């Protein structure tokens, strides 16, 4: 029988929302406070949902250790306590939480082999959250 397992993680990072394609005035108008040149930070709560048949031998969709290890290595080590604007993942795209959510989905989608990746959900604050389930064809992989 198929079950869906969700694991939550926490990381903290800073960013500035600023597009090179826009003028300074347009950037301020578009991003408001988030365009502050010195940046600002968030505690991001990440939810990763995977699914698959429950293994008869283990009773599990996948071994949590495998998921935790991959997220620690590929996501938390990469983004935690970093300035997102300085990372190669955001040399082109603006580090909005939408784009960060898609980046995380793409990274996990490429690397996680133990179950199907259903969805990545990212809470930027208690008030804002974003979800990506692989819809659309555009890829952010650089």
């Amino acid at each position, binding site marked *: *029988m*198929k*079950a*869906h*397992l*969700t*694991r*939550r*993680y926490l990381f903290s990072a800073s960013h500035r929302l600023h597009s090179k394609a826009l003028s300074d005035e347009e950037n301020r108008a578009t991003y408001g406070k988030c365009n502050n040149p010195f940046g600002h930070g968030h505690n991001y709560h990440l939810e990763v*949902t995977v699914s698959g048949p*429950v293994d008869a*031998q*283990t*009773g*599990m*969709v996948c*071994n*949590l*250790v495998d998921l935790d290890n991959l997220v620690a290595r590929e996501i938390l080590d990469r983004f935690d306590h970093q300035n997102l604007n300085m990372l190669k993942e955001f040399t082109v795209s603006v580090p909005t939480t939408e784009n960060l959510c898609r980046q995380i989905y793409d990274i996990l989608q490429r690397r996680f082999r133990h179950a199907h990746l259903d969805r990545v959900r990212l809470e930027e604050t208690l008030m804002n959250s974003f979800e990506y389930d692989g819809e659309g064809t555009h890829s952010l992989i650089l």
Partner: protein
Amino acid sequence: MVYLTRKAEFSASHYYNNPQLTPEENHRIFGKCNNPNGHGHNYTLEVTVKGEINPQSGFVVDLKQLKEVMQKEVLDAMDHRFLNKEVPEFTSRIPTTENIAIAIWQRLQPRLKAATLHRVRVYETPDLFVDFYGEA
């Protein structure tokens, strides 16, 4: 179609062990969860039912009935129990969060008359939960 979710909490102990595997394999796969003396969690259960709104009552389902079924089928059976030893499903299946969600679905589904069971969500901790939709 309207979806209604009822929450409940129960506390229970469990451990993970497959008797078909060697002690070494069990320890490698299940790690700390393989401690035969067990360990416990405060589980949060969310049961979501769906249906059309009854024009007379304005309800999708009578919450009192849903609460009673959850109490009888789940909480009376699992709250403050050692799942491996006291809940029949888990004498033959490992009480992982996945299997707990499936067992709860199988207990509730035949007892819900007015509404359709949509989802069983079981939180083992605030950072880990499993959803089961009755999928084969």
